């Protein structure tokens, strides 16, 4: 065993790692731990008064139809956002990966939305889809004679929210998929071409499986995005309305915690969100390991 040769002292590695641990401990593990503890209390005014209620907050959340609706909203939102932003991202990457004129320009344009902050994107879409004075309804009105109630109809509001979230994140997926596509082993695809495989077959039998590791990585990143980054869109576009139809867990945590001062309930929801994302990530990794071809 010679693997420790670089460090003469047994303590040196720990000393070198200490700064990282301290930062993790103070800014990550301690707050997480505190959140778990807080979720067992009924807290008023950010902790000016506290009462232990055991799992009372969790019971409240899992029995209140309003919270169940929020879970349901979050699940639909996350599922569709992940599915759409990844499939659209993959489709666009394949197109942008062709050797055509101006592909640099196309790629740049595809990635652009990702560079906007969610707040800016939210405001832009708020202007575009304003029911009375937005350009979208103006154009629809003069061409088709319809002016949909984008923000007052529950289904349309959710659809718009999903659309914005997908629009915003497609660029991220395009960046990674294009990188993945460019690293594919050319000889395999060439062999398939010689054997007479159709483009459709080449994509599904070769390209897609080879992109497996990238897909798993993006699946996890997109899931996290859908759960945690939707806040700005909800806050700017709908504020959870109409009547909770677009209220997502991450927005409700903020609301309960900072607008209604129900810190304990908000902490319990954070724990639920945390557990849900951990479980999803584990499933995705497991599933990925058995199905993914890592090459080499």
């Amino acid at each position, binding site marked *: 065993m010679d693997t420790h040769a670089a460090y003469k002292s047994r303590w040196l590695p720990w000393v070198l790692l200490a700064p990282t641990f301290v930062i993790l401990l103070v800014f990550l593990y301690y707050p997480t731990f505190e959140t778990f503890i807080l979720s067992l209390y009924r807290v008023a*005014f*950010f902790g*000016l008064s506290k*009462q232990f209620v055991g799992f009372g907050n969790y019971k409240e959340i899992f029995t209140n139809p309003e919270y169940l609706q929020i879970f349901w909203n979050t699940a639909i939102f996350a599922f569709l956002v992940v599915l759409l932003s990844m499939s659209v991202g993959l489709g666009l990457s394949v197109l942008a990966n062709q050797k055509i004129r101006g592909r640099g320009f196309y790629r740049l344009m595809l990635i652009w939305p990702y560079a906007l902050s969610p707040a800016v994107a939210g405001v832009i879409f*708020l202007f575009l889809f*304003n029911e009375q*004075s937005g350009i979208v309804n103006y154009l629809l009105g003069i061409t088709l004679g319809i002016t949909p109630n984008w923000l007052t109809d529950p289904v349309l509001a959710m659809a718009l929210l999903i659309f914005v979230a997908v629009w915003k994140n497609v660029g991220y997926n395009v960046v990674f998929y294009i990188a993945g596509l460019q690293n594919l082993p050319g000889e395999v695809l060439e062999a398939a071409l010689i054997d007479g495989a159709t483009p459709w077959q080449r994509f599904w039998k070769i390209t897609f499986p080879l992109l497996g590791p990238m897909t798993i990585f993006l699946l996890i990143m997109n899931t996290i995005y859908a759960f945690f980054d939707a806040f700005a869109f909800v806050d700017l576009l709908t504020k959870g*309305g*109409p009547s909770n139809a677009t209220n997502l867990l991450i927005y409700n945590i903020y609301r309960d915690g900072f607008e209604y001062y129900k810190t304990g309930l908000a902490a319990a929801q954070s724990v639920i969100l945390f557990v849900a994302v951990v479980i999803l990530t584990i499933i995705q990794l497991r599933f990925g390991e058995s199905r993914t071809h890592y090459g080499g």
Partner: protein
Amino acid sequence: MKRLATVIGLSALLGFAFAAEKVQITFWHAFGGGRKAFIERAVEDFNFMHPGIEVKVEYKGSYRDTLNAAILAAKQGNAPHIVQIFEVGSQMAIDSGIFVPIEDYVPADLKFQLDDYIKPVANYYRIGGKFNSIPWNSSNPILYYNKDIFKKAGLDPENPPKTFGEVMKACEQIEATKAAPKCITWPLHSWFVEQWIAEQGALLANNENGRAARATNVYIDSEAMKRIVTWWKDLYDKGYYAYSGKPEDWDGANQLFVSQQAAMEITSTSDVTFMQTASYENGFELGTGFLPVPDGIERNGTVVGGASLWLTKGHPQKEQEAALTFLLWFTNTENMVRWHKGTGYFPVLNTSVKVLEWQNWFERNPAYRAAFDQLLQSKANRATQGALIGPFPEIRTIIENMIQEVFQGKDIDKALKDADAKADKALQQYNASVGK
């Protein structure tokens, strides 16, 4: 010129010399934009006139953000001295226990200022018989209307609708003559609902609106509420009422009115100054009128909306006195006159009203008149005193969600009943969390 420079230089030097002994006071508020600049100018004036005190003023975001920040700061032991808190946060502020009941600390020779508040304002902010905070920005909802569109529609531009029924009729005429794409707008905000409840002389919570004792029951499932929601839904279904689709979107409603897409808007009196400028810029004639009320009821009056200034606990006596000096100066007769002219918020002192009357201000600025008359004609009772409910911000969301559900076709009776149950539960949880 040279002499002036010397004087300035000397006073600057003197300023430095005294700087060390100045009492530092922090003041947090929730006004952005033009109002923020207005406040900063006033604070500068104060600091200039009171060499021993230096007030530092900070804009902390929305009303809710400001209250959050103050509670967090108090928890960490460095609360700002003065905090602006919205009216519906009053019960919460008392429950938080981080503020002092201000009336107990006002020096005897300045007590007269507390007796000078106009009645509706004193009624709102006197909680349990005394002022817990200094009333500052106060407003009501009024009707703003576009006189040009009224003329086009053949309506009397000097006689805006006064009741729900008259609004409906005006809307029919505006629709029929195609004078404007939409008839009326206001933000989908619970504040208007609260006002219409008060106009009908009804209460929003038990124990006399939470004024006689802590409220334990919110009244959403009521006749008064049903009248409001039924009319609102009718306006919405017929396409007369427009809103941006987002709850509590004040700017969205203003935009619809100012861009002349809606003939009328109901919004706060604090926008009078903004509306006058905007109507001038957009080339239409602005009219103002009282808040329309349900037909067949006697107009009971509106509740004072806005915010007041609170003094936090636990500062050395010297700082507390300095903070009070600032507070009483900031809301004195002259400053209230300036504040009213600069924003449209009410001059909340009787003496400042007298100054404005002496200046013929209301005759020269009729738009401000409607706002103020409506306030003065409000009857003083529990309904217009306004409800004190701990979790008021949450109750507001419940009411706003209920209205959106009704728009989507939910049965009104059922919607009111469900919202009532939710509100009661929220109140119970809140009361339990503060140990009451």
